[in-house]
């Protein structure tokens, strides 16, 4: 999330709104955003309905306790609501590919 914050001006410069999503409560997300200097909204997908709709639920075990969380992923969605770029797992942590896709989109649009 910090990496997205560092690239926020680049993303906003290409007419792109950054929205974070996690399966926490909106209040946890706000505290997390404050602690990390994140200024874009982080939406609370409590229980994960949206994460599930986007096909990102992953199950894992920690000491035999099974849990569900989101997979790390970034979708770039254009103004018509179409997905024009997606990054998943490790490549989603570094926003440079998303920034690149935004800049290409700006040249096109």
């Amino acid at each position: 999330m910090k990496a997205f914050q560092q690239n926020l001006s680049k993303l906003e410069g290409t007419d792109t709104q950054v929205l974070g999503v996690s399966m926490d409560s909106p209040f946890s997300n706000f505290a997390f955003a404050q602690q990390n200097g994140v200024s874009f909204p982080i939406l609370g997908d409590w229980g994960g309905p949206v994460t599930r709709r986007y096909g990102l639920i992953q199950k894992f075990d920690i000491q035999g306790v099974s849990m569900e969380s989101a997979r790390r992923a970034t979708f770039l969605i254009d103004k018509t609501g179409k997905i024009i770029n997606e990054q998943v797992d490790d490549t989603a942590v570094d926003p440079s590919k998303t920034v690149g896709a935004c800049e290409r989109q700006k040249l096109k649009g």
Partner: protein
Amino acid sequence: MRIESKRLVCLGLLILMFGPAHILPAQSKSADNNEKQAPAPMKLKVGDAAPDFTLLAFDGKELKKVSLQDYRGKKNVALAFFVFAFTGG
């Protein structure tokens, strides 16, 4: 003797029937391990319509509804899913 040989045949059949069943879970277990190494395919692909949603965000004062469809025709959206608050990445 006859009964014993029948028993042997039965035993052989049982091994044939249930033997592979014991081997198969072991195989599928190793397949699971492989799956964890290779990233699972994505449900949504480039070119797909992004599913609409409305979620809540807290801005320090109040809860606000944020919908993907609010940005339609106005802005691109970089939708960044992350694992949990207070985790790295």
